[in-house]
């Protein structure tokens, strides 16, 4: 199974088995990864599943939609070029080894 690593703002890394076809948000919630709030359960209403995708893996992700840009614009933590909403990235087998960093705060 593909591996996915979440790194907290304090540098603590958690590597989990990532089910292909699920979003990074769902994978985080299903594996007890803290630091993702996901208030609206991936319905693009809250912006509290913000992650920073490690730059070398960005090409594996689909581009940000306009709605995602809107939500990221008022996210609680700094907006960076590699900012993404984890509910908008679906895990694929070839993403094995991907690393995402969690922001300091989601709200």
């Amino acid at each position, binding site marked *: 199974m593909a591996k996915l690593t979440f790194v907290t703002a304090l540098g603590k890394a958690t590597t989990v088995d990532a089910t292909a076809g699920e979003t990074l948000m769902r994978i985080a919630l299903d594996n*007890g990864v803290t630091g993702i709030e996901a208030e609206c359960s991936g319905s*693009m209403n809250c912006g509290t599943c913000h992650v920073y995708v490690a730059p070398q893996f960005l090409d594996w992700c689909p581009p940000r939609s306009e709605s995602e840009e809107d939500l990221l614009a008022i996210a609680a933590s700094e907006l960076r070029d590699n900012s993404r909403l984890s509910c908008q990235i679906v895990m694929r087998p070839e993403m094995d080894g991907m690393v995402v960093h969690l922001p300091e705060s989601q709200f």
Partner: protein
Amino acid sequence: MSEHVLVVGTGQAGFQVAASLRQKGFAGDITLVGDEAVPPYQRPPLSKAYLKEGREERLHLRNLSFYHENRISLLGGRRVTALDRQAKRITLDDGQCLDWDRLVLATGTRIAVPPIGGVNLPGVHALRSIDDARRLRDEMATMRRAVVIGGGFIGLEFAAVAREAGIEVSIIESAGRLMARAISPQMSTIVQAIHSEHGVSIFLNSLAASVEAQADGRVYGVSLSDGRFLPADGVILATGVVPNTELADAAGLRVHNGIITDRYLTTEDPRIHAVGDCAAFPDPFGPSLIRLESVQAAVDHGRCLAEVIMGRPSPYAALPWFWSDQGRYKLQIAGLAAPDDAARLTQTENGGQVVVRSRNGLVTAVETLNAPGVHMSARKLLADGPSRDIALSV
């Protein structure tokens, strides 16, 4: 002995109190008890994604190991039958007693069943819990004609999913427009036109008189008070909810359309709190008590109360916001407008609709349809209350 926070209700508000307490480093004991057998889950998708996909595992707020790792003891499938404030003890339906140092009432709401005949017939559905949604989803596989009683968020969200599934849908609404409690007349008109275009028959100013059964006892249709009859093999009760306040009431706490709290989500008993859909709390931006049915309130109440419990209280001050996804239409509301607040309709460049609500020159709320960027700007603009700035990027 360590402090024990006992939360009654395992919905999103109860969950959030427990999760936020641990996030903020609360070291005492936490128990979540509730009558639903499944671990805390998200309700909004029940009338949307879940009805389409049926993916129950996607509803869980967290997996079970989260509760274990965070030392949150989860007692599902248990109803609280008594609340003794003197002894600081609750009794569960299996006879077990639990003592608390802090009690959090997160008892939520239940369906307001309309006072008409036939609501208990097979084929008549509510849409509040995962059990409700499971039953409804099963029957939608063979359902041909649905009648929805109530033209609010839930009724319209169901209508959108049902139409996509090829089910004929009629909506009976007693008011003169859809979602009258939540949005402006202008936005009601727009949403009504969309649903009509998608083939939903909408009966405004109409009252359901009774749900009728055929010979085998199954639902056959709905009679209206004006004598009309709408045939149906499925009926959805979407006439709103009432807060579960009985426990608080019986314990002598003040109750009026919700369990009454102060700005710190605390009842007149300093060790008892109320959060989420069941709480009637002071409007941060107005003079009255309000009760909200929303994920936003559940989550923000939970966070606020966690600070209160940990001895760092600040008054609840979050801006209300709401959403309702109806098919490919996203209705969002930032702020809280009074029914008679002015409403000004504009369009965005890419076809979104925006209604700015105002009173005495202050923007009180912004309703948007397929304009998420404007919604997010409005949430920022209104975060500290009604605003004079109407420079919303429309």
